[in-house]
């Protein structure tokens, strides 16, 4: 008994839209999904098109969406994704489709180029041999350096789905690798750029990127590291950083001034836009719409039970952090 493969078929020259075509494949024991795609192409329909190359999960060519989620076809055992005898295979999301499972990758490469993805060394320092880098420092860039540019994260990113200008998870992971590289001389400029609109703060941490990532690059984790580094390096004059700081103030309390323990939803947006007149005016339309629909938060937030416990937790966090810094 074969499994039913529903594969997306589309030819941008002749088809108005894509459709799913059914193929029956007798899946050999231990076959990968890529093996099955090749069985379809080589034995049933030679016009079926997809990309592939290394078949050992290092070149990144064969990323496709399997039952709705991005995966490398070569790294996926077919048996693991065939549910009730069926599997659906479609091209990556967030990118225009050229043919069948093949997408136009240009937007993906362009987003990568925006983060200036190459090392900028300090040219005034000369070395006869290799530069030194401690094992500890190397480990900070190890994970991001495993990225294979397969586009799985780009495909399933929820922010890109609504905003094509977002840098995207792969590019941000790549940026992390230079920001944390002890050999790079442009950390400040990079953090400044990444703190702008469409940069690291536009991620909504849905974690799809890290869930779909077939390597250890795990973009969300890299984005979090970038954000921490940006705030710690003083890049706080932007909505994203202010939002995080406001969140912390609202729940953790102001340093030395007490308070906190709850999320003040009136304070947070104002804090995020920078407590300026222009910022407040920019919030006006959305504020009015919220009031009209009755979605505005209460003017006087209600105090939760055991608020002291929350405050205590935050004080402990601060203590731990100080110890960690020592």
């Amino acid at each position, binding site marked *: 008994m074969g499994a039913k493969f529903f594969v997306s078929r589309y030819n941008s020259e002749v088809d108005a839209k894509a459709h799913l075509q059914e193929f029956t494949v007798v899946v050999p024991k*231990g076959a990968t999904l890529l093996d099955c795609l090749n069985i379809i*192409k080589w034995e049933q329909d*030679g016009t079926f098109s997809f990309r592939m190359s290394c078949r050992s*999960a*290092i070149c990144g060519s064969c990323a496709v969406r399997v039952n709705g989620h991005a995966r490398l076809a070569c790294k996926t055992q077919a048996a693991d994704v065939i549910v009730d005898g069926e599997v659906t295979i479609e091209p990556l999301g967030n990118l225009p489709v050229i*043919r069948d499972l093949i997408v136009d990758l240009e937007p993906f490469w362009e987003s990568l180029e925006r983060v200036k*993805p*190459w090392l900028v060394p300090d040219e005034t320092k000369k*070395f006869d041999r*290799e530069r030194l880098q401690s094992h500890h420092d190397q480990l900070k860039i190890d994970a991001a350096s495993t990225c294979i540019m397969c586009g799985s994260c780009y495909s399933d990113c929820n922010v890109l789905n609504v905003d094509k200008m977002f840098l995207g998870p792969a590019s941000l992971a790549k940026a992390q690798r230079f920001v944390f590289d002890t050999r790079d001389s442009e950390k400040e400029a990079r953090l400044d750029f990444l703190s702008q609109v469409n940069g690291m703060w536009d991620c909504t941490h849905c974690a799809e990127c890290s869930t779909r990532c077939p390597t250890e690059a795990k973009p969300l984790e890299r984005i979090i590291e970038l954000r921490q580094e940006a705030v710690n390096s003083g890049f706080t004059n932007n909505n994203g950083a202010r939002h995080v700081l406001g969140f912390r103030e609202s729940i953790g309390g102001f340093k030395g001034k007490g308070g906190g323990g709850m999320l003040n939803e009136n304070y947070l947006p104002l804090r995020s836009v920078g407590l300026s007149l222009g910022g407040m005016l920019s919030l006006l339309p959305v504020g009015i719409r919220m009031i009209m629909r009755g979605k505005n938060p209460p003017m006087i937030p209600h105090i939760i039970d055991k608020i002291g416990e929350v405050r205590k937790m935050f004080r402990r966090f601060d203590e731990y952090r100080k110890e960690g810094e020592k």
Partner: protein
Amino acid sequence: MRKHDVVIVGSGLAGLRAAIEMAGRVDVAVVTKVYPSRSHSGAAQGGVAAAMANSSEDSVESHFFDTVKGSDYLGDQDAIEMMTKDAPVTITELEKMGCVFSRDEQGRIAQREFGGHSHPRACYAADRTGHALLHTLFEQSMKYKKNITFYSEFYLLTLIMEEGTARGITMMNIKNGDVEVIHAKTVLFATGGYGRAFKITSNAFACTGDGIMTAYRAGVPVEDMEFVQFHPTGLYGQGILMSEACRGEGGYLLNGKGERFMEKYAKSKMELAPRDIVSRAEQTEINEGRGIDGKDFINLELRHLGREKILERLPQIRQLAIDFLGVDCIDHPIPIQPTAHYSMGGIPVDVDCHVITDAEKTKVPGFYAAGECACVSVHGANRLGTNSLLDASVFGRRAGKAALEFTLKAKHEKISEADEMRKAKKRLDDLLVTPGTESANDIRTELKETMSTHVGVYRTEEGLRFAQGKLKALRHRFKNVRVTDKGKLFNTEIIEALELSNMLEYSEVIVAGAMARKESRGGHARVDYPKRDDVNFLRHTLAHRIGDGAVRLKYKPVSITKYQPEERKY
């Protein structure tokens, strides 16, 4: 028609390194049938050799000798000396470009043991060194975006040769099927190897010898094609590479009786003997019924290394075995078998990567080749592990320098665009217009079976003769091959047919070279001629294409500058 000063075909380590060397000085184009980051250099795992002497004492001299001995004395010693001398500076440059190397306690590039090397000289980035190097160069190429034009997903069709000089290429834009000409002063091929003709192979689908066969069809001979390296540790059934670093870090090979059988074959080096020796040892154990459970595989044992070391040094290996075989090497041994891995043969070049055609080193003006598609020859009959990333880096760099110097003095020689377009389109029309009946998949499957069975680790006169007949029949059938996709947009079926035509043709060259070489040397092991024969065969094979595709063999002497051939023992 497009015009560039230099056209580089191939965007792996050698191609990108050459492009970066020339960027900003001349107008460079890089043509690749994939995207640069997807080139097969990225699949190299264990390391890149250089006598940096970071972990222990080492010398260029020692690296030089180890490579000569590893090559079974077929390597050209002038070239090997140069490569090993260039190695440390080449690695240092790559580090300065930002390559993420693993580091030792002093913060220097970490180095590990590797087969056939007498000191720990493999610089590495965990078990994904090729990936780290390739992505570093890919990053640099984006830095030089203004100076390098990329033609990604373009397929090489022909080399334009007029009056004995290289003047450009024709290619097909895979995205829309258009055939185009690039007119250039200089052509550099860095198109990779030809391991795809074997059933069990570590090679990417892309490794179909396109550049080598394009040069061959344009009248350039090809060198030492019979030398194919079989890597000892391919994942059972698939051939996917399990890095030699597994053994470099202390892994064992065990037969069905649980013995570390390498003791019988290479007592002093054990599992870290050169690859040809280890692969033959495995094949012998399997042939004599001592595979695991009497089957055709061996166990790679890593459990004694411990969880921590495996996770730090061999994370990719572990994941591959889990994904493809469901085996976690922390708890179980990995089933492995020899797998076609590296092409020692290729386009003959001198030490500056200039393509040459005969024993007198007659140059083809304007034509260069570097990396796995080239045969310098630094690997001779058997390449040592970690010398391939080195070859691609060193000779990519050298090719860049030499081609730059040539290009600065050269001009665009005249070409006949219409003729070139006609020749290129004919290759496609032969496949598209013919209403074929033969299945490309059947032909390819039979080819791979034949090559693995009869032209693999061990070869015999009888087997080679059978393969020769079979290949001739397959090529005849290919003339009637069926291509069902007649569209222009991303027609992967026609690309696969073009690749298959290359595989069929070079397989015949491999077999012709192997039949004539009545000796055993390095990766070429003849059961009927088990000894190396320096009197008759200490020479390179040069295969020329004549008439309608027949092979004529000539020979070229080996450069022996320092080390006289002696018996090779480990």
